[in-house]
């Protein structure tokens, strides 16, 4: 594994190895990002409901 080209080729198994790592990245990033966005949405929705109940 001396050159960068060899590293990316992964001994001929590039498709399989890099697809696995790419899929892992997608799954992990989605699981990190989606709950954060949901939290923001929830806070906004609940804030809207509180405002409507207490017109101050």
């Amino acid at each position: 594994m001396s050159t960068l080209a060899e590293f990316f080729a992964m001994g001929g198994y590039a498709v399989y190895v890099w697809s696995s790592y790419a899929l892992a990245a997608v799954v992990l990033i989605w699981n990190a990002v989606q709950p954060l966005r949901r939290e923001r949405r929830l806070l906004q929705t609940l804030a809207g409901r509180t405002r409507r109940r207490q017109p101050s």
Partner: protein
Amino acid sequence: MFEGLHKFASPPHFHAISRWLSPTLYGVSLLLFALGLVGGLVLAPADYQQGDSFRIIYIHVPSAWLSMFVYMVMAGAGACGLIWKMKMGDIVARAAAPLGASFTFLALVTGSLWGKPMWGAWWVWDARLTSELILLFLYLGYIALQAAIEDRRVAARTGAVLAIVGVVNIPIIHYSVEWWSTLHQGPTVTKFDQPSIATSMLIPLLTMTLAFKAFFIAALLVRTRCEILEFEQHTSWVRELVRAEAAR
């Protein structure tokens, strides 16, 4: 020490702790991922038989281990909610399920990607892959059941019964699938067994497993924050929190 643990059982305290703990754990997992990836992709030598394709192990094995671990967490938290009426148990169990399903899905797909170059088929009727697929169905059933019940507390308690039954069932299912897969092969080493693994390959594996685990806890904390908001939206502390957030 139990003072500290008690804090976790109270939703407002859990929410506050999770606020700083989850970014910290994300940082830890990022560091561990970096170490594990360097160790696994660069430093570890290619396998004698499988060449560089064995490197999928660094995704596949931690995902598979975690898929089982998360189910235990889900069932354990559910049991806390069902038996000891701990609200946080209900909440954590519901939050953990999509994470567990994600890891199971990842384990299955990387298992296929590993199997294709090795055994020439996208799907092999291996005992472990088959058990993993059944585990995915168990997760999906749990998620569907909770989604179908409107009252979140009733949903949590019902799901807890299902998850606990699942924990008893999983060894039975696993044993029966092992039985099924050795029917025509004889008691050979199952396809995904590594007979013995070199240290240079093992250390990145353990590092990656820790990285996945730290990631899981961090993600679980965030999901749990969301679930707490849903479960506790009518309480005064949540209303205060929402107002404070809106003011920002």
